């Protein structure tokens, strides 16, 4: 079980929650279960979400596994210049 912190707009889509607990071993499983449990999050996942694991931001590697007790933040997948 991992605790995931959602940024503002995502929290709104998850029914006003700022944190959710999900049984997930990696980013892929986290996104799948988030979409199952909170269907309103699906468009956000489609648009792109980055995952910060212990402060490191992962934008593409869905196989990234969560270390035990990791701090997990979901962030918008940002554009650069």
């Amino acid at each position, binding site marked *: 079980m991992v605790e995931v912190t959602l*940024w503002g707009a995502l929290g709104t889509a998850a029914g*006003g929650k700022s944190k959710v607990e999900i049984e997930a071993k990696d980013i892929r499983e986290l996104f799948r279960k988030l979409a199952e449990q909170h269907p309103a999050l699906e468009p956000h996942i489609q648009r792109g979400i980055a995952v910060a694991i212990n402060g490191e931001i992962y*934008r593409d590697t869905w196989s990234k596994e969560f270390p035990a007790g990791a*701090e997990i933040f979901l962030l918008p997948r940002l554009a*650069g210049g």
Partner: protein
Amino acid sequence: MGFDPRYTGRNFTSVGTRPVRPDGVDKVTGRARYGADFNMTGQLVGRVLRSPHAHARIKKINTSKAEKLAGVKAVITAADLPDLTDGDAAMYAILDNCMAREKALYDGHAVAAVAAVDARTAKEALKLIAVDYEVLPHVTDVDEAMKPTAPVLDDSVFTEGVEPRPAKPSNIAKRSQFGHGNVEEGFKQAHSIVERSFKTEQTHQGYIEPHACVASVSSDGTADLWVCTQGHFVYRQHCAQLLGMDVSKLRVTSSEIGGGFGGKTHVWAEPVALALSRKAGRPVKLVMSREEVFRASGPTSATSIDVKIGSRKDGTITAASATLRYSSGPYLGMWAEIGAMTAFACYKLENVRTVGFEVLVNRPKSAAYRAPSAPMAAFAVESAIDELAKTIGMDAVQFRIKNAAQEGTQSSYGPVYGPIGIGPTLEAAKSHAHMKAKLGKNQGRGMACGFWFNFGGQTCTDLNVGIDGSVSLAVGTVDVGGSRASLSLVAAEELGIPYEQVKAVVADTASLGYNDMTDGSRGTFSSSMATISAARNAIRTLRERAAQMWEISVDDVIWESGQAVAKGRKHGNLAPLSLKEIAAAAGNTGGPIAGHSELVADGAGVSFATHICDVEVDPDTGATRVLRYTVIQDAGKAVHPTYVEGQYQGGAAQGIGWALNEEYIYGKDGRLQNPGFLDYRIPVCSDLPMIDTQILEIPNPNHPYGVRGVGETSIVPPLAAIANAVSNAVGVRMTHIPMSPPRILAALGAG
């Protein structure tokens, strides 16, 4: 084979040196080919008809007269670019921006295009296209657009991110919020509070080379696109999707690039050129004029920002909040969201909240511009920080040092920081000679900090060993700032050979696996990681070939200083084999020798900078001259220090233009008044002092050489650093960018 990206602390031979760039001679002699330098046999000239109205319904377009004009080979409208986006709202916005469908949404919005045998005929044909517009009320100002009485650009937009869903559509496309703690409680603990509102005007990236491409669609459905871009693989994907093609049937070749700064991460004219070529059955060259570049491509957001920061007497910030309103043109952007994330990222805050609003206006689609959205947020926050330091009687640098984020700090946008460089840049600023230099009459000094995320992303690289032992390196990230030199240094370092033995090229989309764009300061970070990985794979093959030549086990062969060395007592009499010797024998030991790498470069590591600036303001004219400018930034490891310094200087130079002069000016009719470099003034050499740089090297733990991205952060602090300097020079807090002479005179009058 897995690749371990962790920093190893090795000593460098090639990395950190300053060889001449491989593309330098071609660029200074005019041999280098930019977007408009490519030509094909039988090519037509493409031209685009653009809306003269800021907001208008397109009732009818009659192209029949244009089509009958001798020499015209194709005329297209939105009907020739049907909606194939399959419900993908982001792609639909790109399609609509490339060619207006139901409404023209800004002055300059493309409504039709022609391909003709020459420019004169194409221009004549545009005049023969009759567009029946129903002119609608428009709004170009970000604050005006948020008012309930403002004309609504898109009736289907109901503010996202608020509950319950608004009952009426509006121009406020999205609300986002970040932060932690209890801001209201934090402000109660404050001894002093500064609360101010700021505005920044819309600016363009100002790349010297306009958008240009040549498209050639064959009757068999395959196509070629030669284009000036920051990301040819992404352009291929977008164009293929919009035109209904298989991506593998569209080959995109990137030209040399005369600046992009984010503006060439979006497709503008390329799908139009492909559609024209498809209809005409001939290649089409489409080059934007400077006026078109300004009216219809790439500006950053205009903003309106409120900031409130409170601190105790000892200088500890107790709470900080900001409301950020960013214009995004007529389509949903994520610009306020990024501004809200970056605004307070430099600081360790117990109580912080930022709220961002994406606002639709009748201006061209806002595009990424170097650390997009961060400079405007930093302007507002760093101005308020400076004022607060002054209010409590603390030195501006010391105040920032006291509140600077550290390893372990929860960032204002959420995650906890790893090792970061804000503290060291501030300490370096504190002890820098610039801070101690004397100032004269009407002169002022300012400083400011800046933050940017930096990205990695999908990357693919091929490293091929030639029969003579020279090495060609094919990369997929467009070289916008000297990366071919940097990546050649990395290949030379890893292989243990001289820099001159490596030649790097940017490969086309048919020759290499997918690469994300050169954006997010990722070019050197990501492609160097893939180059190291590819070189290590090549070294494995080189060891195998040497083992064959010696008829010994590969386990007994190591790679050392550019040669294979047999280890162990029983091989003591074997002389090392150089890369050249192994390459020469390749045909008899298994064929060509190469190393490939496909990876996702994550762990780019966030970046911080501190800038110091001295200005002199003429109180009679309001004109500001930048006297001295210093950039201090963490590079992780500077692969080619000259190009790192170039990025630092370039960001500062662009920031100086943005802070003092650059501005989109719209008339009451919603039309852009200054679409040219005479009236939209970017800085030239005579406007700039020599920009001093100091590279700090705090290794990124997620890169084998410790590299961090360096391309964007340097544009984040300048607006604030210069505003603080001007405010100190004139004794009035400047709150509106650009600080052009009329605004400074108005501020002096009001003060």
